[in-house]
C-alpha cells in the first residue's frame, strides 16, 4: 500500500514536470522579484505597479490580517452579547437572540457577503449625496469615511510614552496585588493609575505640544479625500464575517455558560452578589474554560473565511495573490503552494497553542 502511494506521488510529480515543460513555465520562486504591473485599491504599506510580487504577497497578507482582526473583535462582542441574551430571563430578548442565531448560522457566508456588498453598492447614494453624520462621518457607495488624525513631528514619541504609562500601571498593579496578598487590604490604586497617566500626558505635552491635527474627510471632485476611508468591499466583508461568526460564537458562549453547574449560580446568589457581579466573577471565568477551545477554532475559521473576499474582489491574500498574480504569472504550483502554506501554518500554530492551553487547563483542574 505504501509502495502504491509512493508510486502515485511519483506519477503525479512526473506528469506535472512534463506538463510544465510543455507549457514553457519556468519553475521556482524567482518570479517573486518581478514587477507586478498593477495597483490595488487598499494597501496598508507602500505599494504601486512597480512593486514586486513579494511586496504584493505582503500587502494581501496584511489586508487579510486587518479584516480578520477587526472581524474577530466584532464577532466576539456580538457573539457574547447574543449568547448571553439567549440565556436572559426576558422572553423577548432570548427569542430575538435565538432568531438571530438561526438566521445567520443557516445562511451560506458567501451569500451574506454578496448581499451586503450589493446593498452597499446599489442602495447607498453617490458621493455627492452621501449620508453624513455631524459633517465628519460619511457613507456612500464608494465607501465609509471616518475622521482620523495625522501626525506632526514628535508624534512618533507617543508610542514610547504609552509604553511608559503601561509599564507604570503594571508596576502599580503588581504592588497593589502583593499588598493585598500580604495584608488583605485593597488600596485605591485607580487613583495611582490616573496619577501616572497625568504625569505621562503632562510631560509629553510640555515637551512636544499637541503633535496631531484632525484629518477630516471632505468632498473633493468626485469623491471624499482625507480621513480614514474603508472601501465597500472591506465594509461588506467585515459586516458579513462578524455577523456570521457571531452566530456561532453565541452558541459556544451559551453552551459554556450552561456547562457551569447550577450550584455555582445559587452559591453566588446565596452570597448576595448582584447578578452582574455573579456573572463576571463567578460564572464567566468558569465558562471560559469550556468556551476558549471552540472559540479559537471559530477565530481560525473567520480568518480562513476571509478568503471568500475573492468573490467581491477585496484585495486579500487569496484574491490578490492566488487570483490576480496567478493569472498574470501562470506560476500555479508555486503560488497555490505559498498560499496554502500560509493558512496551514496559521492553523497548525493555532491547534498547537490550543493543545498547550488544554494541557494546562486540565492540569489545573486536577
Amino acid at each position, binding site marked *: 500500500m505504501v509502495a502504491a*502511494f509512493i508510486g502515485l506521488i511519483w506519477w503525479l510529480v512526473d506528469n506535472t514536470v512534463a506538463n510544465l515543460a510543455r507549457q514553457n513555465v519556468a519553475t521556482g520562486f524567482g518570479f517573486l522579484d518581478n514587477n507586478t504591473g498593477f495597483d490595488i485599491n487598499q494597501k496598508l504599506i507602500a505599494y504601486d505597479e512597480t512593486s514586486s510580487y513579494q511586496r504584493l504577497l505582503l500587502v494581501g497578507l496584511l489586508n487579510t490580517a486587518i479584516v480578520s482582526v477587526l472581524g474577530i473583535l466584532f464577532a466576539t462582542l456580538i457573539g457574547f452579547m447574543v449568547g448571553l441574551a439567549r440565556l*436572559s*430571563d426576558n422572553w423577548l430578548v432570548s427569542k430575538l437572540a435565538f432568531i438571530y442565531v438561526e438566521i445567520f448560522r443557516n445562511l*451560506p457566508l458567501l*451569500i*451574506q457577503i454578496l448581499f451586503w456588498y*450589493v446593498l452597499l453598492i446599489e442602495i447607498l447614494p453617490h458621493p455627492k449625496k452621501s449620508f453624513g453624520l455631524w459633517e465628519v462621518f460619511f457613507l456612500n457607495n464608494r465607501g465609509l469615511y471616518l475622521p482620523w488624525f495625522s501626525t506632526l513631528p514628535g508624534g512618533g514619541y507617543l508610542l514610547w510614552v504609552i509604553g511608559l504609562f503601561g509599564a507604570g500601571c503594571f508596576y502599580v498593579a503588581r504592588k497593589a496585588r502583593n499588598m493585598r496578598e500580604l495584608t488583605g487590604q485593597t488600596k485605591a490604586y485607580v487613583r495611582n493609575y490616573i496619577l501616572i497617566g497625568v504625569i505621562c500626558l503632562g510631560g509629553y505635552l510640555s515637551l512636544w505640544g499637541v503633535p496631531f491635527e484632525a484629518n477630516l474627510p471632505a468632498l473633493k471632485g468626485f469623491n471624499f479625500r482625507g480621513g480614514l476611508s474603508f472601501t465597500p468591499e472591506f465594509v461588506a466583508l467585515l459586516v458579513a464575517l462578524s455577523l456570521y461568526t457571531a452566530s456561532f460564537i453565541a452558541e459556544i458562549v451559551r453552551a459554556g455558560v450552561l456547562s457551569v453547574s447550577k450550584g455555582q449560580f445559587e452559591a453566588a446568589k446565596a452570597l448576595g452578589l448582584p447578578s452582574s457581579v455573579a456573572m463576571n466573577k463567578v460564572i464567566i471565568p468558569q465558562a471560559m474554560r469550556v468556551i476558549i477551545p471552540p472559540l479559537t477554532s471559530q477565530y481560525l475559521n473567520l480568518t*480562513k473565511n476571509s478568503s471568500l473576499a475573492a468573490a467581491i474582489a477585496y484585495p486579500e491574500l487569496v484574491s490578490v495573490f492566488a487570483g490576480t498574480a496567478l493569472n498574470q504569472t501562470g506560476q500555479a504550483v508555486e503560488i497555490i503552494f505559498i498560499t*496554502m502554506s500560509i493558512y496551514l501554518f496559521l*492553523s497548525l500554530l493555532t491547534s498547537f497553542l490550543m493543545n498547550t492551553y488544554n494541557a494546562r487547563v486540565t492540569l489545573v483542574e486536577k
Partner: protein
Amino acid sequence: MQQIIKWSRENLFATRMNTLLSLVSLWLIYVTIEGVVSWAFINASFLGADKSSCMVRPHGACWPFVTAKFNQFIYGNYPAAEQWRVNIVFVLGALGLGLLMAGRINFKKQLAVLMLTAYPVLTFILLSGGLLGLSYVETNQWGGLLVTLVIAVTGIVVSLPLGILLALGRRSELPIIRMMSIAFIEFWRGVPLITVLFMASVMLPLFLPEGMNFDALLRCLIGVSLFASAYMAEVIRGGLQAIPKGQYEAGKSIGLSYWKSMRLIILPQALVISIPGIVNTFIGLFKDTTLVMIVGIFDLLGIISFHFTDPNWTSPQVPITGFVFAGLVFWVFCFAMSHYSKSVERRFSVKGVNK
C-alpha cells in the same frame, strides 16, 4: 387576558432593566418586520416580463426576475426536453430521504444502503445520459439548484465512507497509516476551501498526463469531497473516542478480526453518537457548495449572479432580490437539516436517560 398580563409581567416587565430591554426588543422587531414587509410586499413589484416594472418601484423587491428565471435557477441550461430526468432524480431523492427521516419503517437499513449506493449511480446515469437510449447531456449544461444538490450529495456520499476510513486510520496502530491519515486530515482542515477549489481548477490538470482531462464540475466534486472527508473524519473520530475501551476489548476477546469488530461492534455505536456532528458537517458542506461559483461553476448562487448581467434585468433591486431568493432556498435546506439533527439528538438523549 389575565393570564397574558400575568405572563408578560413575569417574563417581560419583571424589573426596570427588563422593561427597558423588552421595549428595545419590541422596537427592533417592529423596525425589522416593517422593513422586510415593505420591501418584500408593499413596495415590491410582482408582475412583468422585464425590468420595467421593477424600475418603477425602486424601493421594493423585484420578484418578476425570480419568476421569469425560475426554470434556469433550478435546472441551469439543462435541455428542456430532458428535464423530466432531473425531476425523477429530485423526486426519488426526496422520497428516499423522507422515508429515512420518517422514523420507524421495516427496511430502513436496506433503504439507507440503497440511498448511498444505488441512488448515486442511478442519478449519474439519468443526469448524464449516453446510456439506455438517454441522450448525453454535458455537465456544462447542468446548473442551478441541480448542481448545488449534485455537489452536496456527492460530497455527502463520498465523505462519509472516506471519513470513516480516515478516522480509523488516525486511530490505527500502524504508524505509517496513522501518520498519513493525520497529514491528510490536518492538511485539508488547515486550508480554506476556496484555495482547494483554485487548486482543483488550475493544478489538477497539471498533475495528470497529457490528454487526460477532467471536466470542471468533476474537479470541484473531487475538491469538495476530499475537503469534507477531513472534517467528517474528525467528527467520527470523536464518536470513536467516546466508545468505552471495554467494547474494543470485547470484540478482541471473542476473536473477531479488526474489520469485523469495527463493523459489528464499534462503528454502529460510534456513528449513532456522531449523528449530530455528521449532520452539522453536512450543513457546512451544503453552505460551502456556494464557493464553486468563484471558480466558474453555475450552481444556484452562480447562475443567479450570472443572470444579473442580463440586459433585460439590470436594475438596482435585481441583485438584492436574487441574493434574498438564494438565501431563502439555502436557509430552508440548512434549517431543516439542523432541526432534524436536534430532534435526533433529543431522541437519543432520552434513550440514554431511560437506560
